[in-house]
């Protein structure tokens, strides 16, 4: 049992080190705004990775509060990034997992996102939007595709 998962990939026109830096250093630039994309309504937060092993992904708000999206599980610049992910309405044991691989390919870097762990959310959980696993994953796939297209759009070509 691997749990329901989504895998989405995009090729960006940059070498893996640059693609990794784009994903991490510039997350606030490409991560789209709107209720579906940022973690709290209002969309006034700033996203950032506190880098390195033991680091985290956070969204910080102008009132000084902060939402911790997740913890960095793996930090290998230019190769692999993994972090846990929860929404504000997830309880402590409802973390999902995001793994990103950066692979050099002709023309740039293949960025492959895998998002799993959805089986930790009970069937009635609001994050499921009353959807069964497969339609939920399709929705998340579209969501990630929009994100990765926005990220890839930061680069020429």
């Amino acid at each position: 049992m691997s749990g329901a998962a989504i895998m989405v990939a995009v090729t960006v026109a940059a070498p893996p080190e640059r693609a990794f830096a784009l994903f991490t250093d510039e997350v606030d630039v490409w991560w789209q705004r709107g209720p579906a994309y940022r973690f709290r309504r209002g969309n006034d937060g700033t996203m950032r990775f506190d880098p390195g092993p033991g680091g985290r992904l956070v969204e910080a708000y102008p009132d000084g509060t902060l939402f911790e999206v997740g913890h960095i599980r793996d930090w290998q610049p230019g190769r692999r990034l993994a972090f846990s992910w929860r929404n504000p309405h997830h309880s402590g044991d409802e973390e999902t997992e995001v793994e990103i691989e950066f692979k050099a390919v002709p023309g740039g870097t293949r960025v492959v996102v895998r998002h799993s762990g959805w089986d930790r959310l009970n069937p009635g959980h609001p994050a499921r939007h009353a959807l069964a696993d497969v339609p939920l994953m399709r929705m998340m796939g579209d969501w990630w595709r929009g994100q990765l297209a926005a990220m890839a759009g930061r680069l020429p070509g």
Partner: protein
Amino acid sequence: MPIRQTIIPALSYDDPNGAIAFLEAAFGFETHLLVTDGDGRVQHGEVSIDGALVMLGPAGWADWAKSPRSAGGANTQSVHVEVADVDAHCARARAAGARIVAEPTDQFYGDRTYRAADPEGHHWVFAQHVRDVPADEMSANSGLKVEYRS
């Protein structure tokens, strides 16, 4: 009227996970979306080649959605894919275990094509445009009346 590539074939497989691995290894597709269920089985996949898309998923979700393997090998459609180097593409497909149904051959309409069957018996045509052929020459070479509009 310009042609827009907005028609996307969607194929049914008994083993969609295996199909994706094959399409990558043999035909050079790149996977860019996978939706997998709690057992790790692909429920929806999208693979692309040179920006063109093919969708695939498990057979059996509807009674008409069958793999050719469970339909006596019948195909009611085949997928036609344009590639840059059809001979090299064929060699790769053969090396990866594709059954070559028709070897690369120059066609009267100016494409060089080959046909291959994947492990479940879907037929694929891969084509490289090698020569512009006027309609009257196509007609003369084929014995058919050829008309086209661009």
